[in-house]
């Protein structure tokens, strides 16, 4: 079977609204990390011109799972997902996301979850559809990261762990699940398979003390409330003690 992806680019003009330009000026941001969802990322010429006129330097990159420069996915939500060297990351004053909705820009928040407050970079969003500025901040996900911390603690002390794998080829991480099992020989790991994660089935496995997610990395955060026993992402499970010490 052949496969064709179509970006479905935005039909209107992609530009920064006055509110965004004023906000960048008010905050004296001189260097921004520029990212957009695929509907907007191939049409940023006007945005770049506006930023140049405002003397704002742009830093961007091809994030790890994306196919084009400047694009960001919701799963680019872990610390090194932007593929930028530390010196470039340090140079960025704030991130500017072009697009609608909170799903994509929240990836820029989650990937900073273990940074010291002084190193945390603000995420500014410019929605070209409604021609407005909106902000996403760490406080809006603090409840989630607090619960995530308690899930990490549970993972470290739990004996019976449920690892959720999906059969979707783009997400399946079964071999990595087996490697995690080897890292913690004192725990009992039970490997579960699903296509979409069936949240309503979780309570049918009461012997599981905490879950490990290997599917979309955002499940570990955005769906935290759906896991009464708690859930952590597999990458954090490998270094649970370290993450527990650093996560905000």
């Amino acid at each position: 079977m052949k496969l064709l992806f179509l970006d479905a680019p935005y039909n209107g003009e992609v530009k920064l609204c006055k509110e965004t330009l004023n906000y960048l000026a008010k905050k004296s941001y001189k260097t921004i990390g520029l990212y957009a969802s695929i509907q907007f990322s191939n049409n940023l010429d006007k945005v770049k011109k506006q930023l140049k006129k405002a003397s704002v330097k742009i830093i961007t990159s091809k994030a790890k799972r994306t196919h084009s420069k400047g694009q960001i996915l919701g799963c680019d939500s872990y610390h090194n997902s932007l593929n930028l060297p530390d010196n470039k990351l340090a140079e960025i004053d704030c991130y500017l996301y072009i697009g609608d909705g909170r799903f994509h820009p929240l990836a820029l928040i989650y990937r900073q979850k273990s940074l010291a407050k002084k190193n945390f970079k603000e995420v500014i969003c410019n929605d070209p559809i409604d021609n407005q500025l909106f902000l996403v901040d760490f406080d809006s996900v603090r409840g989630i990261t607090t619960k995530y911390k308690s899930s990490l603690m549970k993972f470290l002390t739990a004996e019976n762990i449920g690892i959720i794998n999906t059969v979707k080829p783009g997400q399946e991480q079964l071999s990595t699940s087996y490697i995690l099992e080897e890292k913690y020989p004192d725990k009992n790991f039970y490997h579960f398979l699903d296509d979409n994660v069936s949240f309503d089935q979780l309570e049918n496995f009461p012997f599981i003390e905490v879950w490990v997610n290997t599917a979309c990395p955002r499940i570990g955060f955005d769906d935290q409330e759906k896991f009464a026993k708690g859930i952590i992402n597999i990458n954090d499970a490998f270094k649970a003690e370290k993450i527990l010490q650093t996560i905000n």
Partner: protein
Amino acid sequence: MSLYKLELESAIEKIKEEDAKIVCIQLPDGMKPQAKEVADAIKTETNAKVLIWLGTNFGACDIPLGLNRLKVDLLISWGHNFFHKEKGW
């Protein structure tokens, strides 16, 4: 005018290029109401049968399974581009 371009010309060109007999179309939630427009255009412009994926379209990582068994020749997925999977994240 719809918010996002359907790129129907590209879809139809690919169907003809591949001489696809059965095509599955997968749309993100926000574009699902436009499935009729897409299916009708494909049926008018080509001889392909169109199957509309009812389920999720979370991203390029979320490709429907089992389509080969149904002899689907071409899957067209809107709203995403090629996904570079990271082994073990």
